[in-house]
């Protein structure tokens, strides 16, 4: 069985990528299971999706614990513990990162036993990354080695139908280019032999003790703890205020900011709280003087 996990941020198309890979496997005659996994969904938050494919009916369910292939659309997720990008990776797992840094750097940095591949996204000049999902899907399809170019193409047409010809065309172009670029790595993903799980290690079950209600009630006693949660880590794009152009009408940007992350000095000069700004860019769109620029997070000063 092939077990693939895809990590990205809400909005990068990882769910769609998992569906493209799933549909392509299905077209090749595989039994398939694909699913996204998220909590309280929102753009920019870490999400992941997974795909299982096998020639036999799939009885496994839920999160993939020992992936054969992990695809990461956003390298900044590697350092976010909650994203769990490296969970269950061992010497057999292939890690594919969308990153401008070479694979060797990542291999060394993460001290990984298994193979690492990277793909750069230099071509993308805009602050939107509309086809990163397609690039991931194209690469993954080639790396498993059992998906044909035409099955990939069919899957993209199927999954993106309804988004219009232009979107389909640009995703096709990206995905197929990515598929072609990984020709020399075709079939690098090797599912292990199905493990004989007996004799097994018994789970370390514990008797949950009785605790006094003061401890066992699910209360949060601290106030304003949301300040501690650095939601700024979700950001892929950041607003940057051009002081030259800013007229100081901070009631506009600070009012429209859904997260209260545009603060104002007593003089009315807006300042962005990058610890909590999620990069939705509403401030940029409402600024009457076009004084707020959208800057890719990795290019930010």
């Amino acid at each position, binding site marked *: 069985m092939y077990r693939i996990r895809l990590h990205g941020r809400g909005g990068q198309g990882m769910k769609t990528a998992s569906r493209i890979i799933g549909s392509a496997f299905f077209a090749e005659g595989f039994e398939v299971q694909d699913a996204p996994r998220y909590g309280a969904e929102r753009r920019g938050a870490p999400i992941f999706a997974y795909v299982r494919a096998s020639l036999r009916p799939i009885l496994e*369910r839920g999160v993939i614990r020992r992936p054969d292939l992990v695809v990461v659309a956003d390298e900044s997720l590697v350092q976010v513990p909650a994203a769990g990008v490296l969970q269950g990776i061992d010497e057999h797992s292939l890690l594919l990162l969308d990153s401008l840094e070479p694979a060797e750097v990542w291999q060394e940095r993460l001290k990984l036993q298994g193979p690492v591949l990277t793909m750069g996204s230099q071509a993308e000049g805009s602050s939107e990354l509309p086809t990163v999902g397609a690039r991931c899907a194209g690469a993954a399809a080639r790396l498993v080695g059992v998906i044909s170019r035409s099955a990939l193409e069919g899957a993209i047409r199927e999954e993106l139908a309804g988004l219009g010809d232009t979107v389909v065309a640009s995703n096709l172009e990206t995905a197929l280019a990515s598929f072609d670029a990984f020709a020399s790595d075709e079939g690098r993903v090797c599912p292990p032999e199905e493990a004989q799980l007996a004799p097994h290690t018994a789970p370390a079950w514990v008797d949950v003790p009785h605790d006094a209600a003061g401890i066992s009630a699910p209360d949060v006693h601290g106030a304003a703890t949301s300040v501690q949660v650095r939601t700024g880590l979700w950001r892929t794009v950041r607003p940057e205020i051009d002081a030259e152009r800013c007229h100081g009408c901070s009631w506009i940007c600070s009012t429209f900011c859904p997260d209260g992350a545009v603060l104002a000095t007593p003089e009315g000069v807006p300042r962005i709280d990058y610890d909590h700004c999620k990069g939705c860019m509403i401030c940029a769109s409402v600024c009457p003087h076009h004084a707020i620029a959208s800057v890719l997070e990795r290019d930010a000063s």
Partner: protein
Amino acid sequence: MTRALLTGNGAAAWGARLAGVDYVPAFPITPQTEIIETIERWIEAGEMDARMVTLESEHSMVTAAGAAAATGVRVFSATSSQGLLYAMEMLYGVAGWRVPLVLVNVSRGVSAPVTLEPDHQDVLAARDSGFLQIHCSTCQEVLDGVLLAHRLAEDPRVRLPAIVNLDGFYLSFTREPVEIPSPEAVERFLPPFDAGSTRFRASTPIAQAVAVLGGGPYSYFRYEMHRAAEQALGVYAEIARDFARELGREQPAVATHRMDDAEIAIVMIGSFATKAMDAVDRMRETGRAVGLVRPRLLRPFPRDELQRVLSGARGVAVVDQNLSIGQGGVLHAELSAAIHGQPEAPPILASFIGGLGGRDITTEEFFEMVEVTRAAAEAGRPPPPRLLYTEEELREVRKLQGIALAERHEVGPGEAHASRAPEGSGS
């Protein structure tokens, strides 16, 4: 017939579409919303001829569903978790009206504390309402279950509403290959709804579900619901035969896997049962006589069939993804009542609580549950109930509690305080 990749939610919507439902009262809730969104798109595109109305709550939604069903049209709706709980008064209500309708519940653990992930607490809260219950373990079963539920609920011998249950995430958002039957095949199995005497019209008003005092009439009407649900067992067997004939799939009230010579049986419901199947297969490879029993029908409870398939087993591991607070696993208690005192009944019925709030159940844990049950059978003494919970999970909670405690010390007990202004706010 086509075979396509569908989520559990997509399969539920396809079930409603193929059943040719007339009326869909709706209210959104995660992880169900995709069902009503899908149906809404089809209606909008003219691919499905039904009326959808968004109500202001699940309580009103189930009321509308019951009222519409009383007019003799085919009704479908869907909800989850808190939505089902919010509708609870009307679940009992419309079941008492004796109107057939199908309600899909996408299982999700109930608050508090709040979660989005699944267990069966929500649907089991509706256990005694008079709704029949079909529990699914694959996306295919969701589509099939909606068709079976309509036919079962509408049968004049039954005429009770039915819930089709699927697990959030593990089925609701998970795509699997699903056979979508042709409308012709479905119509052979599920002809248009013949409402019979169910013909409520504004122009010819009737009093639906009148008040009865004194206990005698009340007992009669309530017990008649019970009788109808009991009848539903036999009716289900009939329609499952029809289903197999017309649509080519077996959907028995109690599904079994490798039970023929099984000494130890796992009993559970829902999507994790496929994981149990996998574990059973692996254990069989090492020569262990283990099997799986999965009641698809939970209301009515297929007592006789469960007695039959479990008779002769030395021990049973009951896995409950629910917790009756102060009692234990609901399925365990129900199964105990069903087999107690029966000849050939398994002497050991071990209770395991697992998978609460979407907590995974690993293959090793299935192995261990079987081992614990086998050891108990050897010793002739039932093991204490066991929550599937590891040392590591408890350590993790202790860590969170440590943080909460530190926070409490910092803030002080019950002390009012202004919210802290973030740095740089200048105010």
